[in-house]
């Protein structure tokens, strides 16, 4: 089975190709060099280097975040429209799952972290059972302290924020906190390989409806929600010039 995997949700963008049980190609670039400008150019590069075409793929996989909202929109839109155009199955993979997958060898609870700014993170807990990786509970979006309060057993923190907030995590959790490799951004081929069992089981995503996993809302949405919750104060029928 041949699958192209694309991820533009993080600072390192990547495209990889899985052909059977081997990684045929993996190419990464810095998102600052433009996700939008590079994504098709590098898709073409990976396919040409592999001597294959998009039409020869059996499926397409894409990182759906959480991560950069703009970045993940580029990857998700490009991959789903390509899948729709060449009529290939599509699989969206969470960036957190891809990060956890890379540390599957560890026999403790895994907690991949994605930076959400202002000491906030996106996170989830994953447990390895045999060959299976299962998420425990819901996705998390909030402060790093709010996250550490939830754990009562040894946890391996993964991702760049694990290093950014290592001090806070250690002071809150002491010896329960472990830390994975600092360079654990998953490559495109990881996203592709994670999709293989899903394609094999026939559980593809719908190419038209796939959307990013944001785990957060815009400031305007948050303010509106707050305003609507506080609603009740009536407004006069005449406009207020100072308003």
């Amino acid at each position, binding site marked *: 089975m041949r699958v192209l995997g694309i991820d533009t949700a993080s600072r390192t963008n990547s495209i990889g190709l899985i052909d059977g049980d081997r990684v045929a190609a993996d190419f990464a670039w810095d998102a600052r060099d433009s996700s939008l400008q590079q*994504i098709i150019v590098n898709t*073409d590069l990976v396919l040409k280097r592999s001597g294959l075409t*998009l039409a020869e793929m059996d499926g397409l996989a894409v990182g759906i975040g959480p991560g950069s909202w703009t970045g993940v929109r580029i990857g998700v*839109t490009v991959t789903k429209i390509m899948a729709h*155009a060449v009529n290939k199955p599509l699989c969206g993979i969470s960036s957190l799952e891809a990060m956890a997958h890379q540390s599957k060898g560890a026999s403790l609870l895994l907690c991949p972290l994605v930076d959400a700014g202002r000491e906030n993170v996106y996170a989830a807990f994953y447990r390895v059972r045999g060959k299976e990786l299962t998420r425990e509970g819901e996705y998390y979006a909030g402060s790093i302290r709010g996250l550490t309060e939830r754990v009562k057993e040894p946890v391996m923190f993964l991702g760049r924020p694990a290093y950014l907030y290592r001090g806070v995590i250690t002071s809150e959790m002491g010896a329960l906190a472990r830390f994975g490799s600092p360079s654990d951004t998953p490559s495109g081929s990881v996203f592709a390989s994670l999709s293989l069992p899903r394609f094999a089981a026939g559980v593809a995503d719908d190419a038209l*409806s796939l*959307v990013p996993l*944001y785990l957060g809302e815009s400031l305007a949405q948050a303010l509106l929600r707050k305003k609507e919750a506080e609603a009740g104060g009536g407004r006069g029928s*005449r406009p207020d010039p100072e308003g």
Partner: protein
Amino acid sequence: MLVLGIETSCDETAAALVDEGNVLSNVIASQIDLHARFGGIVPEVASRKHVEVIGYVIREAFDSAGKGHSQVDAIAVTSKYGLIGSLIVGVSAAKAMAYALRVPLIGIHHIEGHIFANILSNPGLPLPHVCLTVSGGHTMLIHVKEPGQYEVLGGTLDDAAGEAFDKIAKFLGLGFPGGPAIEKLAGHGNRTAINLPRPLGRSRTSDFSFSGLKTAVVNMFKDSARQTLPLPDIAAGFQEAVVDVLVSKTLQAAQRQGVSAVSVTGGVSINTRLREAFSESCRRRGLQVFFPRRDLCTDNAAMVAAAGAVRLKYGEVSGLDLDAIPNAPLESIKCA
């Protein structure tokens, strides 16, 4: 030549198939209701909605035209001028489609799209002519020498005309979008009951300014004697002031360029009073005036596809590294 157009520069997700000037499909998913709750367009909300619906909109453009992917000769997309987050989604989709179908990709300036809304709607549109593009995002006067050859004569120095409508509607508590709300209320008012300024009305440039007009309306509510003025009269007086400036500046530009025709395009060109005033004034001056068909006034992808077809004929094709640029100047076709 069958061209797929894609447009996501602001708050409409649109896709269309155009074949040699014939609009085979023109699909527009409007986000107006979504943004109305916020009283204006929220860029992050718009970007998310574009990703959610873009695939369905493209599929519908093919289905309703009765065409298949393999029949498309090129993909044109609005890549310049608009909200960056919104533009990015359309450009991503267009690139993916062009690469997958192995057809040329053409990046189009949003304003050039609006110019083509009139060319598509009126096959007899004379050239050269002066085009006024007017919406919530832009107010521009352009000397259209021929399709693809432009000279920008002027634009707004502050708010776009449609933006002024939105802000006054918000101030009067009429909701978003402001254009239709003001027009409806103005229908019950007297347009000469109040006297509002015509900003830059006497200046010899082709530039516009609407923020002072907005302030003038707001200030009327600080004057207790005027507090009793009926809102319909305020709406009608405000609309008249905007229309007056748009008409006089466009006719002035037409005279200076020595053209015999003008065209008006963009979301505000759907306004009935604007159309009426343009028709009256142009008739008096012996000028022809053209408007797009109603479904091509607001943002749409048919106009983008039409512009793309012309650029492609002159060999202007974009690379797969096409970028989205929110503030790009309108450029003519170079190799013509």
